[in-house]
């Protein structure tokens, strides 16, 4: 057990790094570019992390630190930067989730990426990503978390832009990185506030510092919101959600791994990690950002026609759910939803990949239809995952989603007033989710084929692809998380991940802090049944509507869309967020950049060159002055001397006799002169 907690996490972290390094440097020398190596290593890693989870279950929390940077005694208390890892419930669970999905995606990609020119590069990037993601969940220091946070951003950038020959992936990769950087700048600022006030980076020290009141009041709220900015970027929350749909330009297994199951959930993980230090105001912000995101993206998903885009918006929507859940205080439910969502959303993306391969790289659902007959395995796994995401009973999604919905009711019940909007939107989103997911399912798999030629060539995917699908679909059953199909409260998962008490002594302000935890739980208990009935009804209505619209075609959808054209277009064009940002932020930055360059060239450098010109112009006048006046004086002196010379020249006759005569006279003159004086 000791080994499993103390040494194994490091090994688990380094194995994907090894995979990355081997493939990056020796990929050309290994047969098949080392895909089998990477996949084997990942499955090994999965086994290890399962063991860590088990060890945690029996032995409990473990944390270790080493000195990373020591700056000497200059800054009291903050001279040392520690590096280390911790194994707690969040980490142990995340290790398994990340490794599991990464391993399945590796396996799946062997077939999916077959024949790609950059096949080995792809697997090395996957290794890099897995390494960074594992580091992110393992570390116990917020600074190191930022380190890995950025590294997952890098691997995401590389993988989104994997097919960089085409224009769209380039742009999408760039957009993803920059939008994430905006969130990360806030994250870093939050870290700075924490460092400044508490002087430490490890979560343990930070929480201890907050508990001791070193960071309190407005600064605490600001720190919480700034840290949350990082989550807003990474988990694609409003208003930084625009990068995620574009990120679908990457290979589909990557979308499943990074942009659905793991990396985008890092934001949720972060919020869960710092949950105990979030002040009431910060939690309010978290809640509303989450619910707004969930709602906006659900409305956008209604009208999208690209299979991956629908799933992308559904991912954003579900992430909003998780964020909202943590915001309302349903910490463990939010995290629970993260885990269940990771499995069924990965399953959805991988089935979408299977469809895309089957349809020979068509992604538009309007060209699909009737695929159930051609791709039965894909269909049933897709159906399973769709049921889960729609919150149909007996699925894992039902357990987590229902709990979240109940929490929103409890939240509104506790707080009253305007907060009632949170459960209303949350339930609305549940209905929308059911509707658009079944719309996707019906259009894609049921009905008649729209593109006969493509349909004829369509085929079921090979086993390497379907096996991960089946496993992930099976994992969407309730039984893996709780034996009670209607509540996970007594299941192993929620027993392990129990909600921590807030450490904010004396600041039990709004939200659930108003009341002792027990009281919140009381509300929750009452809300539970209401929530279940409501959510079942709403999901049922959503699913039914989808069938009415798209399967039985009782309503002419096109006509309906025509009649609410502005709304329809608003949704189809994603609420015009991209256009808005292009017109404002991007245009402003580019404009100011051009302006700066112009200023630099014309004004700043102009002054320098102008100074040079002025100096040269001035030098012309000084030159003239020099020539006429200064040099004139010199020449005058010379002239005078010359004139005298001419005069004296007369005496130089060249005749010795003259000289002698002068000599004699000279002597006589001297004689008289000396005689006189």
């Amino acid at each position, binding site marked *: 057990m000791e080994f499993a907690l103390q040494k194994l996490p490091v090994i688990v972290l380094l194995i994907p790094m090894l995979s990355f390094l081997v493939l990056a440097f020796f990929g050309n020398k290994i047969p098949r570019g080392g895909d089998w190596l990477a996949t084997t290593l990942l499955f090994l890693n999965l086994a290890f992390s399962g063991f860590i989870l088990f060890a945690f279950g029996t032995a409990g929390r473990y944390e270790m630190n080493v000195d990373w940077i020591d700056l000497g005694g200059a800054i009291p208390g903050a001279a040392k930067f520690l590096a280390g890892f911790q194994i707690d419930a969040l980490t142990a669970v995340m290790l398994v989730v990340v490794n599991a999905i990464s391993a399945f995606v590796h396996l799946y990609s062997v077939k999916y990426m077959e024949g790609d020119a950059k096949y080995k590069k792809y697997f090395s990037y996957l290794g890099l990503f897995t390494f960074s993601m594992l580091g992110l969940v393992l570390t116990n220091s917020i600074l190191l978390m930022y380190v890995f946070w950025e590294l997952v951003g890098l691997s995401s950038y590389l993988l989104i832009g994997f097919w960089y020959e085409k224009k769209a992936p380039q742009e999408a990769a760039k957009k993803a990185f920059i939008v994430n950087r905006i969130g990360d700048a806030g994250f870093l600022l939050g870290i700075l506030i924490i460092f400044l006030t508490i002087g430490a980076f490890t979560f343990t020290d930070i929480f201890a510092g907050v508990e001791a009141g070193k960071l309190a009041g407005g600064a605490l709220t600001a720190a919480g919101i700034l840290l949350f900015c990082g989550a807003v970027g990474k988990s694609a929350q409003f208003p930084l959600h625009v990068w995620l749909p574009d990120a679908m330009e990457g290979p589909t297994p990557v979308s499943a791994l990074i942009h659905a199951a793991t990396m985008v959930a890092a934001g949720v993980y972060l919020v869960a990690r710092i949950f105990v230090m979030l002040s009431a105001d910060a939690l309010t912000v978290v809640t509303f950002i989450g619910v707004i995101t969930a709602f906006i993206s659900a409305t956008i998903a209604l009208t999208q026609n690209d299979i991956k885009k629908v799933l992308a918006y559904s991912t954003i929507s579900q992430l909003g759910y998780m964020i909202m859940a943590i915001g309302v205080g349903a910490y463990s439910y939010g995290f629970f939803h993260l885990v269940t969502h990771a499995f069924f959303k990965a399953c959805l993306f991988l089935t979408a990949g299977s469809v895309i391969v089957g349809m020979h790289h068509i992604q538009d659902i309007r060209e699909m239809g009737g695929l159930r007959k051609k791709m039965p395995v894909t269909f049933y796994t897709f159906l399973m995952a769709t049921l889960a995401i729609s919150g149909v009973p007996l699925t894992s999604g039902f357990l987590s989603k229902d709990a979240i919905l109940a929490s929103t009711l409890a939240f509104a019940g506790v707080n009253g007033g305007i907060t009632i909007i949170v459960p209303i939107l949350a339930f609305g989103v549940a209905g929308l989710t059911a509707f658009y997911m079944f719309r996707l399912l019906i259009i894609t798999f049921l009905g008649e084929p729209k593109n006969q030629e493509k349909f004829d060539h369509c085929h079921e995917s090979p086993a390497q692809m379907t096996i991960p699908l089946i496993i992930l679909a099976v994992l969407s059953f309730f039984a893996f998380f709780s034996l009670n199909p209607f509540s996970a409260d007594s299941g192993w998962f929620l027993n392990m991940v129990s909600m921590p008490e807030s450490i904010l002594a004396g600041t039990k302000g709004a939200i659930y802090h108003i009341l002792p935890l027990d009281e919140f739980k009381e509300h929750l208990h009452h809300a539970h049944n209401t929530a279940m009935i409501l959510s079942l009804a709403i999901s049922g209505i959503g699913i039914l509507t989808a069938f009415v619209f798209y399967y039985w075609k009782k309503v002419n959808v096109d006509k309906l869309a025509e009649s609410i054209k502005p709304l329809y277009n608003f949704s189809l064009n994603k609420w015009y967020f991209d256009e808005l940002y292009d017109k404002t932020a991007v245009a402003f930055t580019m404009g100011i950049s051009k302006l700066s360059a112009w200023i630099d060239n014309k004004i700043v450098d102009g002054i320098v060159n102008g100074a040079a010109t002025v100096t040269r112009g001035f030098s012309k006048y000084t030159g003239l002055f020099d020539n006429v006046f200064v040099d004139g004086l010199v020449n005058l002196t010379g002239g005078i001397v010359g004139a005298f010379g001419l005069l004296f020249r007369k005496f130089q006759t*060249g*005749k*010795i*006799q003259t000289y*002698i*005569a002068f000599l*004699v006279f000279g002597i006589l003159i001297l004689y008289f002169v000396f005689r006189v004086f």
Partner: protein
Amino acid sequence: MEIGLTHYLVLGAILFGLGLFAMISRRNAILVLMGIELILNAANINLVAFSRYNGLGVDGQVVSIFVIILAVAEAAIALGIVLNLYNNFATVDIDEANTMKD
């Protein structure tokens, strides 16, 4: 009237003045040379006179003999130059021998 040092010195001065005059005014090289000889002899007279009246023993005589010998040598060389001058310019007028000027 007793003949004294002054008389010799006056004689020397007259001789020197004549020699100087000849040197400055004559254009014939031979005459210039003769002027030089006069100046030298004026010096000789002075030397001998000082020697006699100022109790210098024979020093003055020795120097004057030196000067006489020097004058001979000088005359020989100078006459050689004059001869060459005549050969080159067909005259002994020193004003004509001005080719080194300018």
